[in-house]
């Protein structure tokens, strides 16, 4: 009985994953590069009120964790890897993100307007 929830959960996750791309169609895309533990651009302007897709390319050999409290995002990117991060439609404002492994030095911002 205790193992029963596993399969339905996986099935649910797979079904949800299949449904996911359709929702991102009207999203605004932002491209950010991580190199020498710096985000480039360090600040990006995005439209407010629209879902956002961040495409992050990590050009460093070391892994990073892209994280933001305000954007409610937490995602690992492998060294030399790339990730796509979906962000909800934002109210106008300045939102900080950072590399959780180098929070003091590696930060950037999304400005929604």
């Amino acid at each position, binding site marked *: *009985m*205790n193992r029963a*929830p*596993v399969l339905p*959960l*996986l099935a649910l*996750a*797979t079904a*949800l*994953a*299949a*449904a*996911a*791309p359709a*929702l*991102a169609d009207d999203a605004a895309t932002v491209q950010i590069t991580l190199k020498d533990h710096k985000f480039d651009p360090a600040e990006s302007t995005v439209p407010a009120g629209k*879902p956002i897709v961040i495409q992050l390319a990590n050009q460093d*050999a*070391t*892994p*990073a*964790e892209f994280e933001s*409290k*305000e954007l*409610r*995002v*937490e*995602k*690992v*990117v*492998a*060294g*030399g*890897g*790339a*990730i*796509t*991060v*979906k962000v*909800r*439609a934002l109210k106008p404002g300045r939102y900080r993100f950072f590399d*959780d*492994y180098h929070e*003091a030095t590696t930060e950037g911002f999304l400005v929604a307007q």
Partner: protein
Amino acid sequence: MLGALIIVFREVIEAGIIVGIVLAVTKGVPGSRLMAGLGVLAGIVGAGLVAGFAGALAESLNGVGQELFNASILSLAVCMLAWHNIWMASHGRQLAGDARKLGQEVRTGARSLAALAIVVAVAVMREGSEVALFLYGLVAAGGTSSDDLLLGSALGLAAGVFVSAVTYFGLVTISARRLFAVTTALITFLAAGLGAQAANFFQQAGVAPFLSDTAWDTSAYLSDTSLFGRVLHTLVGYSDQPSVLQVVVYVVILAAIFTLTWAFAPRGGAPSGQAPAAQNG
């Protein structure tokens, strides 16, 4: 060194608290230490795999594999915690109170132990994979400072184990009768907190694109990245900027587990004669 210590400690603390709680919950149950140990071991192996295949995981399932993986294992942990609480309420009331009365319950008790071992494995895997990636980054970056950073990481890990021990010994000083009520409540809040985290990953994956507004922002008063905030985050699921969906999921899970635990608890003729107050904690 201090930076590495803090980062590793911050990751380990969550798993440490959960392991401490599980050890206290299963204190005196035959085989529980083996199960917890296997859970930690499976978690470490899983953490290594997740870290090693982080790139592939992130790219899978249309780029949301990492989010759905996190959401799924967190949901699994919530189910295991809920199931454990309900099972304990219906069969195993005496397990926590008096291990000598176990008798035939031992065999069925092992199923509940397995559920908790899965919870331990999930907690260790989630936090451990981030530590593994951080350490890999340190080693890959090389340089003269990496020994220093590794020492800091080792101290951070030790501090995390210390928190686990503090949680365990803090809980087991509670009298056996009250321990059951306390751990039932702790596990319920733990499950609700993990469920809220799972909800966040479902939102991040874009599969729950509703109720995504921020419910409140208390980061100026108590950041959930501060030490105390982190402990509260693990224990009761505190978040300083949760989405509305997270709050809803949290409340629903809390209400559901409390209700089911209460509903499945034997009343009246309970042979152990413990007070019904144990259900409410």
